[in-house]
């Protein structure tokens, strides 16, 4: 099972920091995602992209997690060499996270 089966996501940029919100489709999905999707695993999943620390903020009222990825945008939108300098594609990439593989 992929994260995209349980949640949707949106990424945004600020300087060299990207944030990816992960919003569960229902309460059971939220509990599962909250348990599995640790900041460490997000960083490992996006390795080669995220250089710095990953922090997670929980928003239970919205069934959402907000991941803040430091050093994820090639030095920032204005100077990045990346094809996707804003990191807009990161949400789609995170949704490919395999929940089975991780919990096994």
């Amino acid at each position, binding site marked *: 099972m992929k994260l995209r089966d349980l949640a*949707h996501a949106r990424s945004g940029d600020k300087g060299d920091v990207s*944030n990816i919100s992960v*919003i569960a489709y229902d309460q059971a999905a939220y509990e599962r995602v909250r348990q599995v999707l640790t900041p460490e695993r997000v960083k490992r999943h996006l*390795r080669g992209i995220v250089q710095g620390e990953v922090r997670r903020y929980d928003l239970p009222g919205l069934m959402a997690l907000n991941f803040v990825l430091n050093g994820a945008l090639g030095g920032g939108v*204005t100077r990045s*060499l990346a094809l996707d300098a804003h990191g807009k594609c990161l949400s789609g990439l995170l949704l490919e996270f395999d929940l089975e593989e991780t919990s096994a």
Partner: protein
Amino acid sequence: MTSFPQSRVVRIGAGAGFAGDRIEPAVELVREGRLDYLVFECLAERTIALAQGVRLGDPGAGYDPLLEARMRAVLPQCVEKGVRIVSNMGAANPVAAARRIAELAADLRLPGLKVAAVVGDDVLEVMAGSPRPLLEVGGDVASLGESLISANAYLGCEPIVEALAGGAQVVVTGRVADPSLFLAPLVHEFGWALDDWERLGRGTVVGHLLECAGQVTGGYFADPDVKTVPDLARLGFPLAEVSADGSAVITKVEGSGGRVDVATCTEQLLYELHDPTRYLTPDVIADFSTVQFEQVGLDRVAVRGGGGQARPAQLKVSLGRKEGFIGEGAISYAGSSAVARGRLALDIIAERFRLTGLAPEETRFELIGVDAVAPETLVSAFAPMEVRARVVARTRTRAEAERVGREVEALYTNGPAGGGGATRLVTPVIGVVSTLIERALVLPTVIFEAAS
């Protein structure tokens, strides 16, 4: 401030979420949205640095290039219906923008239209040579030396409120925090105190939800089969019906494309957010963590909760600096050995850089369709039928940047079989870094212009 019943609602529409946004949705909002205010957010981080350069060449320029097109499209109807406009399209030259709008109003036979420019965000003189530390990269402002080309403090809602109180029908600003463009009309209409942190926080939530326009009404959301959005080609832009306590309903014009529901609102609430309990603007430190959404009708979502605490002591300053050039080249390969030939192409370019002594400060060699965007954990063994080899490098000089694309282009006759569609590009880099400034050193002023 006049008194009003507690049930009164202020209707604010978002007419643009970025500089290049569609124009028709704003026209539709004015025509059918029964708006009180229309806000255009059009000023990205580095745009103002680029505009500063334009202004240096021409003192009458430096405002948003689409200012005239947007104003022509909405101004007559806005005047007729009494919709007031707030925008940061003034960019590096709000006074020239206000003057242009006043001229336009005269052309459109809208005599007496009152336009206000908010100035004072430009703090380049204070910043040049300053020992203030740079927030993201270390070092201080002085170390930027000659490369520093612009410095703009993020202003809050106050000068816009002053312009509205002075009777401006159109307010144009330079650098203002995006949500503050929306908060200003609320402070003006409801008479919120500038230390009423809870209401300012809630108004900031509303501003944040609206500031990217279509991103809350179904734009940046669709994923076929999973999250569908009707009629994105006619996406309706959002409007908020805001109450005096700062709660609101987010909706859009009936019959327009898109969707407004708890999912679209939640995605946008968390967009570009770090700590949800501390969203910093010049007006307030807003708390988004207690926001609640409820679907209250078709394409209608009620926003409740949210709050705030005392505003930050200092203002953020965005600094534009010249950082050399980016040179880029790309070329396509197709067929079942496309990946192998693409990789060969990249290896050849890397070797050419060594042989010709090109030593960029940073480079990327990648295959679009394989690993340009995806991390290594997701690059599969699946072989696409086509790839695009991309080489990009940051260099000190334009001449070096030119060489990057030329080397890629030369793969036509010197590279792997069947390379096609080579493109090359050189872009000057205007990097943005930031620092903080004491409020006392930033003195916003409102300048009025009237159409003759």
